[in-house]
């Protein structure tokens, strides 16, 4: 079975713990950023940090980094669909 080889990837405890520390650091960072006086920058800063955290969770905790092409493409299509929904809605909302 070709699938067997891609499933059996084992991520060590050390690596998982490193990702966890990184996620905690990003959480602290996003709280710190939100206390700064940035105006609209808050929205972009928070979104960027949240996306980075989500990327780490998906890539390592959810093993997406070690998955085959099919799941990666499906994830891409799902996120693209969401981005199109959000993008087109804001195109309407902001320029009404």
């Amino acid at each position, binding site marked *: 079975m070709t*699938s067997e080889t891609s499933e059996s990837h084992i*991520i060590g405890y050390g690596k998982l713990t490193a990702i966890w520390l990184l996620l905690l650091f990003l*959480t602290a960072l996003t709280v710190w950023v*939100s206390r700064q006086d940035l105006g609209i920058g808050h929205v972009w800063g928070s979104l960027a940090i*949240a996306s980075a*955290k989500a990327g780490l969770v998906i890539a390592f905790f959810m093993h997406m980094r070690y998955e085959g092409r099919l799941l990666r493409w499906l994830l891409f299509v799902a996120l693209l669909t969401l981005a199109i929904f959000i993008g087109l809605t804001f195109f309407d*909302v902001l320029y009404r």
Partner: protein
Amino acid sequence: MSHPAHKDYAGSKLGMWLFLFTELLLFGGLFLLYGAYLARYPHEFAAAGRDMHLFFGTLNTVVLITSSLLVAMSVTAIQQDQRRTVLWLLGGTILCAAIFMFNKYLEWSAEIGRGIYPNSPKLVAGPPGESVFYSLYYLTVGLHGLHVLVGGTLLAVVALRVKKGSIHGGDYVLLENGALYWHLVDLIWIFIFPFYYLIL
């Protein structure tokens, strides 16, 4: 692949991911509503957002990230056939889920005590943007809390099956899918946290 029963490992995981994508779009729709109303009522959203309990939000973020680590470690442990470790790690994850829900209970109690709940007299009398903010907050966080309960129950069932031995180092797709579901719960909170507690 084991011989007695046909197992489609890749298919099981593909099915789980497809389900997770529908969840992503479900919560994506709620975030979209949040964004659209934020554009319409920026000042009311800012005023309401400042009243949120940052302490509970941050604490619950740390609790969920930790639970995500524990469940990810449980997948590593089952791959090495360390069943006792898996049970401890899943127990830790479920404990985190319980702590999360308890914090949520304290937080919601405090808010409802201040007269902030959907259609409360205080919100009806206040500016419309604030009641939209809190309605979306209760809807999104409530739906997320439901996912925490479902995920915790699922992981408890998985833990029982690990204990019974029907999930082991050679066949652990149920544990892996349960873990994926739990990570999704964490993922959604990663976005709820800045939207409702931080941005404004």
